[in-house]
């Protein structure tokens, strides 16, 4: 049972992180290859607090705030670049984060931070907390999608120039997407740090960013249910199959490429086209992908 609880907790954390990225990449159309940096910022921010005696319940929002603030800064920097270059910029942010963390003795340097205090909820209680938070993030995503903010995101993901022509302040909306998506990644990071009780630079590297992007792409860019499902499967799989664990970066990288190339709608897109073929009714295409 212990093992299942751990898996479930880790899967819930992955769902939160992936849904955060889905706000940025899926809803607003801004690719990010550095999402693990914000995940890490939340983890480090909170771990610094709780190892110094601050309550977990204060560290949780604080971690979100740190990650969201960093996300806002990166978002500002990314306003000037488009598509392909945004991928490179965000990747750079990911490497920069790791580089800085390694050099900072205050952040544990290469050794990382260990003996992170237990939040005291018990294994099951902590799992419930994670699952509830994942549910809240999913509900928020679904709400957002149907709000006018989601409507404007659709336009920006579709065609930025035309979004401007209907009066949408594209830059501000992008910043909002970055701030929210990265703050949510920060929450996932806090939860991760207090689950594993140890974090180091390697916990938040490029492979993690690729894995998260693969979850979003495989699930179906923008589809909340699809992304959550993919996040669960892709978190659990490496624990069950040793090969997947060993070749994670390679496998998930290849998967990411394959989805972009052959089924840009991801799993959600496949399900939609199956339904369309089976039921004989037409559903307008949604979600455009920049390969």
């Amino acid at each position, binding site marked *: 049972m212990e093992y299942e609880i751990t898996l479930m907790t880790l899967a819930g954390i992955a769902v939160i992180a992936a849904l955060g990225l889905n706000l940025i990449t899926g809803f607003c159309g801004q690719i990010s290859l550095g999402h693990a940096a914000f995940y890490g910022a939340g983890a480090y921010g909170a771990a610094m607090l709780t190892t110094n005696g601050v309550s977990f319940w204060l560290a949780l929002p604080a971690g979100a705030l740190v990650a969201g603030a960093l996300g806002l800064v990166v978002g500002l920097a990314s306003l000037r670049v488009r598509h392909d270059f945004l991928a490179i910029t965000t990747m750079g942010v990911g490497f920069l984060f790791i580089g800085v963390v390694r050099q900072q003795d205050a952040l544990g340097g290469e050794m990382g931070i260990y003996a992170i205090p237990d939040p005291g909820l018990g294994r099951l209680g902590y799992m419930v907390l994670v699952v509830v938070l994942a549910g809240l993030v999913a509900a928020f995503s679904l709400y957002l999608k*149907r*709000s*006018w903010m989601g409507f404007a995101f*659709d336009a920006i993901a579709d065609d930025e120039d*035309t979004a401007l022509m*209907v*009066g949408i*302040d594209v830059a501000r909306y992008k910043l909002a997407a970055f701030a929210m998506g990265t703050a949510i990644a920060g929450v996932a990071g806090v939860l991760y740090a207090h689950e594993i009780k140890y974090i180091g630079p390697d916990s938040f590297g490029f492979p993690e960013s690729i894995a998260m992007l693969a979850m979003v792409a495989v699930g179906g860019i923008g589809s909340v249910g699809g992304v959550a499902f993919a996040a669960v499967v892709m978190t659990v799989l490496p624990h069950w199959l040793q090969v997947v664990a060993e070749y994670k970066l390679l496998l998930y990288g290849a998967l990411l490429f394959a989805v972009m190339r052959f089924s840009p709608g991801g799993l959600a897109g496949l399900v939609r086209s199956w339904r369309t073929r089976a039921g004989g009714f037409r559903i307008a*295409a949604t979600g455009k992908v920049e390969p």
Partner: protein
Amino acid sequence: MTALLEVRDVAVSFGGVRALDGVTFALQVGELLGLIGPNGAGKTTALRAITGTVRPDRGTVTLEGLELTRLPVHRRVRAGLGMSQQLVRPFRAMTAIENVMLAAGTAKTHAPFGALLKRDRGPEREKALAHLETVGIAEAAESAPDSLPLGTLKRLEMARALALEPKVLLLDEPLAGLNHVEARRLADTIVELNRGGVSIVLIEHNLGEVMRVCSRLVVLDNGRVLGDGAPEAVMADPAVRTAYLGAGAGVEAGHA
């Protein structure tokens, strides 16, 4: 009296190409102004300089005395400009009516977190349907843009601009892709909109319709204003006839 929209000494170049070379003209309140000229004259570039899509090398654009020159595109749109582009740019992942609804919802999309708190799309759907009816494509409301012919997409582009409820409507060849009857009907619609209080700049190659509906013409050629005045007077000007229609050609020559 100051003009509603004033373009003063605007110059635009793309690399070595001088697309606009000191263009000055104005749109008065309630006018339906025809902006004409041969291919490559700079008509589209002039509208894009007005909306801010291209940055002029010099010159100013003002709307109701408000200097637009340094404002980004979305601010100009919110100040009262609506543009229907020559090359259609629908949001392809949305249905036709959603394209128009989004434009009808500028009050709701003003600020991101304000937009997050608003969900009701009902009023915008009603308005959008009315705009689609105005341009005569209500039957295409639920269609995906990729399934629609060019003539319908051109009118969708116009409906979306209308939904912004602009003070100045900029129309770049709205009749392109329409047959004779459809073109005439849409030209009549443009006149009705104008009578309803919208001031309009109309770029159009269909000279027959331009002469019929416009109250004034500005002729561009090679990035310069060649003529500006009442349609008959402008078209009678030898310089305009030579440059625009070829020597000796009449207005009846139709398509330029």
